[in-house]
């Protein structure tokens, strides 16, 4: 599996993401600068956390119109796995690949801590190696992670099992329905505020995030194997 980690000016979790793929999975991974225009040849796309363009205007708003974004949208439409973490999630929302928007955290604080997440849907290509309702420990680090959507959108997310992760226990940022991560209708675009790449090795305090990347790899292997044999 060949993975692209998109790098914007202001990305700061790109290296964590890179090493989660390279060392955690032992798979091929490249940094792709935001000014590039093609993602041909990549099997999976990662949009890392950080403060792209200094969060000017709104988090993710300017990155959304970077040169690479048409290629990200194309990859998403083609069904390739696209994972947006933290600022990456914000960019996916701004790009309309996922519904809703981010508001400032309820208490206006930037929160940097490890939280308990509940896996709400393990029937996705990102979460197959988790159990439903399993509690996992994953760090968060954001000032604008207060997920907002209108009630019709929330109902659609709930009815179609598209809420993948929720905060367990105290909701750190005030997000609607305790949402920490959601998936698109087709099931190949996941956005989440918590950082699985920062929990991809026991040395980091938790390796609960590694299974997310292993799930992506497993799905890719199964789908390519199916393609070879069919």
């Amino acid at each position, binding site marked *: 599996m060949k993975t692209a980690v998109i790098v914007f000016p202001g990305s700061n979790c790109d290296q964590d993401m890179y090493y989660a793929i390279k060392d955690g999975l032992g798979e091929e991974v490249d940094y792709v600068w935001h000014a590039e225009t093609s993602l041909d040849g990549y099997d999976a796309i990662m949009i890392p956390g950080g403060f792209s363009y200094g969060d000017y205007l709104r988090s993710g708003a*300017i990155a959304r119109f970077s040169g690479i974004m048409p290629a990200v949208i194309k990859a998403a439409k083609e069904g390739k796995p696209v994972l947006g973490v933290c600022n990456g999630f914000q960019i996916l*929302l701004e790009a309309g690949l996922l519904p809703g*928007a981010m508001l*400032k955290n309820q*208490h*206006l604080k930037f929160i940097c801590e490890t939280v308990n997440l509940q896996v709400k849907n393990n029937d996705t290509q990102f979460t197959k190696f988790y159990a439903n309702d399993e509690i996992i420990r994953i760090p968060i680090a954001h000032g604008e992670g207060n997920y907002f*959507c*209108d009630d019709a959108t929330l109902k659609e997310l709930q009815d179609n099992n598209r809420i993948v992760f929720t905060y367990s226990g105290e909701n750190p940022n005030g997000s609607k329905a305790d949402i920490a991560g959601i998936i698109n209708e087709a099931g190949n675009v996941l956005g989440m505020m918590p950082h699985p790449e920062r929990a991809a090795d026991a040395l980091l305090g938790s390796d609960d995030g590694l299974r997310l990347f292993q799930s992506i790899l497993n799905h890719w292997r199964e789908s390519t194997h199916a393609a070879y044999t069919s």
Partner: protein
Amino acid sequence: MKKVKVFITLKESVLDPQGQAVMQSLHNMDYKNVQDVRIGKYIELQMDDSADVAEQVDTICDKLLANTVIENYRYEVEEEVHS
């Protein structure tokens, strides 16, 4: 030349924690009659008249300046007078 003044505000249905914090501060300053504070953005654009400015500004706001999931916008177009 046109000067476009764009005002972006949070929708009524969206809580504004910044506004709430500012209101609390105003109350602490004894401005007890302040009932609500909503914080928005003000953006100025200088545009030449080569295209339909109003139509362009609508698109610019929808696509980039405002996030219409959480924000409303309105704008005023003024003729820029050069001295």
